[in-house]
């Protein structure tokens, strides 16, 4: 008799999801699915709103990565105004996006995943959390707080607030960076750099311990997609789309992000509210690709900053060139933090940042626009159509976590197949299937906060739906 295991909800991710694993009569894993149980509806209720409100509205999609939506939305607005924004505005937007990458990656690594990595996946679940990490590694935990604070304060310095700054607008930005805040941020660069380098060294020292997880946490060849600069440099705000395969060969390059619908298809499944984007020429579901830190490091030729470039060389040596193991998302995330700090230091030294011309004024000059940027979790597309008055008539949002959806489902199945053989459900599998998902840092975006904890709830079902076992922790 077949069985079904449900893990509901998955904890220490951004939002709510559950995992179900189907066993066949022999107790082997038949299939596994990562279900997204939230429905947000932003694409529907934005219709009818003025274009100018879109950055403010869509940044509310998430409290962790609001800046990503703010920037992609403003860039879609730039397209509809048909303007090139002032150079200083583009640099300020870049600066904010780098702050966003730091604060979001710091949350993912130090607070959500470090308890697993540093305390051990088989340690007591009651202690395998942020407080357990603080007890064991207080300096690392404090460093994580400081890094997040650095990113958030950069965002607040530009946008006036840490979360949901209504600062980037179609045509540019509302305000520049005050010289005093610029000096304060510059003064924090050495500390942020030291924290990031220390975390990298600790992670590299742990890699040997996680050889098995590196092999089975979503380790399979897929395509990788993301933005790159003109010379193939790591890019987070502009540039063109590059796609490589699992061996690093270029599948497509120089693609205009605005024409994404010519190379990305979007499938839906009845068991999840999250879409399943795929590389259109390869069809569904074969066109699986990954986005985010792992993809960006596989796509780029270099970072263009000395510390990050040295880390990238070592990363590729350790990962064997193009890295297919999703466990390396953590490693890639830490290198991106370091790169972001270096780029922030460069931008803060740029005299053009003090320019006063920050916004191009224009009306509705096109009826359609696509804004693309790299969010911490991957490439983010905002696609709008408007009427002649600038009222929204169509919205399509292609979000990073969605683009990793096919790969996350395969990762869950790979982990389950490795650890489950028979009717018993090993504790090691339960921890690892969650940790495997967490490596992708999926952001499923609660729209409102909720008091209390998010427990792990696992039920074991027979094929007829009977609950055979249930675990709460």
């Amino acid at each position, binding site marked *: 008799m077949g069985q079904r295991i449900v893990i509901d909800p998955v904890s220490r991710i951004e939002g709510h999801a559950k995992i179900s694993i189907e066993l066949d009569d022999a107790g082997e894993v038949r299939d596994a699915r990562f279900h997204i149980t939230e429905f947000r509806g932003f694409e529907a209720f934005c219709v009818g709103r003025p274009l100018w409100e879109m950055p403010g*509205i869509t940044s509310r999609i998430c*409290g962790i990565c609001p800046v990503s939506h703010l920037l992609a939305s403003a860039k879609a607005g730039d397209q509809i105004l048909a303007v090139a924004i002032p150079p200083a505005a583009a640099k300020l937007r870049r600066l904010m996006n780098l702050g966003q990458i730091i604060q979001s990656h710091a*949350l993912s690594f130090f607070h959500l995943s470090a308890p697993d990595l540093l305390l051990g996946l088989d340690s007591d679940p009651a202690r395998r959390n942020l407080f357990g990490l603080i007890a064991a590694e207080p*300096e690392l935990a*404090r460093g994580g*707080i400081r890094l997040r604070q650095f990113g958030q304060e950069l965002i607040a310095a530009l946008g006036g607030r840490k979360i949901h700054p209504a600062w980037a607008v179609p045509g540019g930005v509302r305000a520049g960076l005050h010289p005093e805040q610029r000096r304060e941020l510059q003064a924090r660069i050495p*500390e942020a750099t030291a924290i990031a380098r220390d975390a990298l060294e600790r992670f590299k020292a742990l890699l040997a311990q996680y050889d098995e997880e590196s092999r089975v946490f979503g380790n399979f060849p897929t395509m990788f997609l993301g933005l790159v600069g003109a010379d193939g440099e790591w890019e987070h705000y502009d540039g063109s789309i590059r796609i490589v395969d699992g061996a690093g060969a270029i599948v497509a390059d120089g693609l205009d992000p605005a024409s994404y619908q010519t190379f990305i298809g979007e499938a839906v499944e009845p068991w999840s509210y999250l879409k399943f984007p795929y590389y259109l020429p390869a069809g569904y579901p074969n066109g699986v690709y990954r986005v985010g830190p792992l993809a960006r490091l596989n796509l780029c030729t270099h970072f263009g900053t000395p510390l990050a470039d040295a880390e990238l060389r070592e990363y590729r040596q350790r990962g064997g060139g193009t890295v297919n193991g999703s466990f390396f998302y953590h490693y890639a995330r830490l290198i991106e933090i370091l790169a972001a700090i270096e780029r922030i230091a460069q931008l803060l030294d740029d005299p053009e940042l003090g320019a006063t011309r920050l916004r191009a004024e224009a009306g509705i000059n096109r009826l359609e626009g696509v804004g693309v940027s790299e969010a911490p979790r991957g490439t983010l597309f905002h696609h709008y159509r408007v009427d002649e008055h600038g009222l929204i008539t169509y919205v399509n949002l292609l979000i990073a976590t969605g683009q990793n959806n096919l790969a996350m489902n395969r990762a869950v199945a790979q982990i389950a197949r490795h650890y489950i053989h028979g009717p018993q459900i090993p504790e090691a599998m339960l921890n690892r299937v969650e940790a495997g998902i967490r490596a992708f840092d999926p952001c499923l975006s609660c729209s409102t*906060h909720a008091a209390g904890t998010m427990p792990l709830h696992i039920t074991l079902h027979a094929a007829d739906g009977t609950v055979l076992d249930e675990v709460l922790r």
Partner: protein
Amino acid sequence: MSPRPEPTSRFAPILVIGYGNEQRGDDAVGALVARAVATWELPDVQVISVHQLTPELAHTLAEARAVLFIDAACCAGEADFTVQAITGLAGHEVGGHGGDPRALLALADALYQRRPPAWWLTIPAERFAFGAELSPTACRGMLLSLRFLRDLIHSLRSEPCTRSD
């Protein structure tokens, strides 16, 4: 090594943190109260209005003399608002979307061994739809709680610093 917060002193700020989603009706009321307190421009009162409580706030909190958390509360009963002193430090997760100030206080305590006296003011909330205006219940709770907060902050500013670390 990461710098630790300065030891609390009589000059340390009183911290007011209002939090909630400003696009979801009454959920905004905590953030709106905080913004109203900010307009008073009291010299030793630091006001933070945020969408949600996030871990890095632990550092700011550890530097404060006292902390007032303001939040919306669903199904809060008949009272116009409720105030409770936070005494327990529940070991809740402080993830991206956690909304429990006890978790943040516990984090500050664990990271910096600082635990300022704290109060949690909650205002009844009824409407959570996107774009909804504040309900009459939340409006009334907001106005009355602002009067209370003015008095509470005044009395805290008059008191010598009380350290608990």
